[in-house]
């Protein structure tokens, strides 16, 4: 029998189908980037012109539709406050739910599947529906009962009216699935061996969750928080009926005050102005502030997460 023949390796051929596909994916990427670039450039070009210290620190005391007289400080304060307040509600609630689902509940049981299904469905509910839910549940149901219980016979409702508290709670309900899903993912990524090691040393389940599992999941939890903030900062529909004010002469002082909001203000400026040409520069600048605020809130959360990650890697 002759020796086996090693056939020469043929030269590389260009496959037109894969070439087309590569081109197509590249084109899609360029398109997305171009759209984003046009939007940002447009906003920065028109909005940047109206940027001044006075615009940032000014209120709307004189004429909210007139360039040079209007400012956005109340809206920055209102939007930042409602987002931070929302985080205080949604992060603990979401984390506790995720811990229950991954650490305590039997994954195969019917009621775990029902909870998971409910969380997924919650994520698909349109935001205006959350707004109506907030009005119906928090203000008309909870708020009015609080009024009847705490301040019987009061002429003016204190709790049973739109307020920053109810708007934040409505946003928290809306962003709950985001936090739950992100936390669940980070909990599932923790090796089972760590839990076993802790339990085998005589730790209770709670001790294991508190000392081993949650510290490990912290970066993932913060990712959930970042996603929730990003989603909530720009939302207008859920706060329309639950707390946002068309105009307020002062900043909100308590949880039961209404507030002015950047996103809602953009809507007002673009639909209610008597002179759209005079208002347009403010509109652009306000949109730019909304984007900057969202980026800034994200940046803070990302920096905190990065810090925790480094600390976990170095000191632990």
């Amino acid at each position, binding site marked *: 029998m002759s020796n086996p023949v090693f056939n020469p390796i043929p030269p590389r051929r260009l496959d037109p189908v894969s070439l087309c596909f590569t081109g197509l994916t590249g084109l899609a990427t360029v398109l997305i980037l171009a759209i984003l670039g046009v939007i940002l450039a447009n906003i920065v070009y028109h909005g940047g012109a109206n940027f001044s210290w006075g615009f940032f620190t000014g209120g709307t005391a004189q004429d909210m539709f007139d360039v040079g007289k209007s400012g956005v400080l109340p809206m920055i304060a209102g939007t930042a406050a409602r987002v931070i307040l929302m985080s205080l509600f949604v992060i603990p609630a979401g984390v506790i739910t995720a811990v229950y689902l991954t650490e305590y509940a039997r994954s195969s049981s019917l009621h775990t599947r029902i909870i998971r299904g409910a969380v997924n469905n919650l994520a698909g509910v349109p935001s205006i529906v959350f707004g109506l839910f907030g009005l119906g549940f928090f203000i008309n149901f909870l708020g009015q009962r609080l009024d009847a219980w705490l301040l019987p016979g009061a002429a003016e409702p204190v709790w049973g009216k739109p307020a920053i508290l109810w708007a934040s709670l409505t946003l928290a309900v809306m962003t709950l699935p985001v936090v739950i899903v992100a936390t669940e993912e980070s909990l599932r990524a923790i090796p089972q061996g760590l839990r076993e*090691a802790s*339990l*085998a*040393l005589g730790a209770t389940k709670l001790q294991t969750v508190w000392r081993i599992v949650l510290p490990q999941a912290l970066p993932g939890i913060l990712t959930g928080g970042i996603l929730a903030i990003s989603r909530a900062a720009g939302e207008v529909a859920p706060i329309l009926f639950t707390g946002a004010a068309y105009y307020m002469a002062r900043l909100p002082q308590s949880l039961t005050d209404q507030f002015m909001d950047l996103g809602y203000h953009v809507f007002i400026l673009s639909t209610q102005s008597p002179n759209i040409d005079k208002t347009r520069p403010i509109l652009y600048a306000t949109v730019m502030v909304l984007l900057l605020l969202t980026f800034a809130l994200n940046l803070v959360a990302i920096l905190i997460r990065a810090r925790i990650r480094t600390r976990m890697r170095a*000191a*632990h």
Partner: protein
Amino acid sequence: MSITVNSHPALAGRDLSADAARNAGHPMIETRGLNLYYGPSQALKHISLKVPERVVTAFIGPSGCGKSTLLRCFNRMNDLIDNVRLEGQVLVGGQEIYDPEIDVIELRKRVGMVFQRSNPFPKTIFENVAYGLRLLGVKSKSDLQDRVEKSLRQAALWEEVQDRLHASALGLSGGQQQRLCIARAIAIEPGILLMDEPASALDPIATGKIEELILALKQDFTIVIVTHNMQQAARISDFTAFFYLGELVEYGRTITLFTNPSIKQTEEYVTGRFG
């Protein structure tokens, strides 16, 4: 003489492992007619054996024979798995540990475990060993330091890590990590140490260190070790139990079981002809 316990119905009454226990102190762990099911499939079949105090007992057998499952009965780690059902008795220190009155947390403080894959916490070396002590309520810094040092010395790791106690445990080599896990387990002074293939992921040198360590530790601890490595069982254990398909085939002194097994299946396995 070799001692056998066979789950075959005809032999079910013959609990000859009592003899093994008589030869070396009281039984520390005892199972009586233990059956274990994962859902519909039976993983352990009528296991009755006695593990003597302060000796090394090795569980050997091919993959899936139930030896790790049995080991995990002794500190009730099987509780963590859904659909596990258990029949029969497991006694540790004379107490029925599946009694509903038994506090499983307290049981696990008395029965330590070392796992196949080393699983140090992503904390410092010091905090890994101190973890169990803190759970016990040890708060004083000097107490913690003393007991951490003692455990690391017992685990033959002190010399290597004393300069970097506050560095991450994840920076240690695989063998060092496994010895750290042993130090962590013995820090809370359990009477019993369960080891589930503790050296299977280690190189021969690291394995040698673990084996030396096990021989040193048996002065203070009752050790049960699951191993795939027959030479390892022969080197370090006083008693060996051979399992096959969920049954305890043969159990006796290691030297007898390896040189003069009374059951043909055992002989074929320990000589490497099957398994």
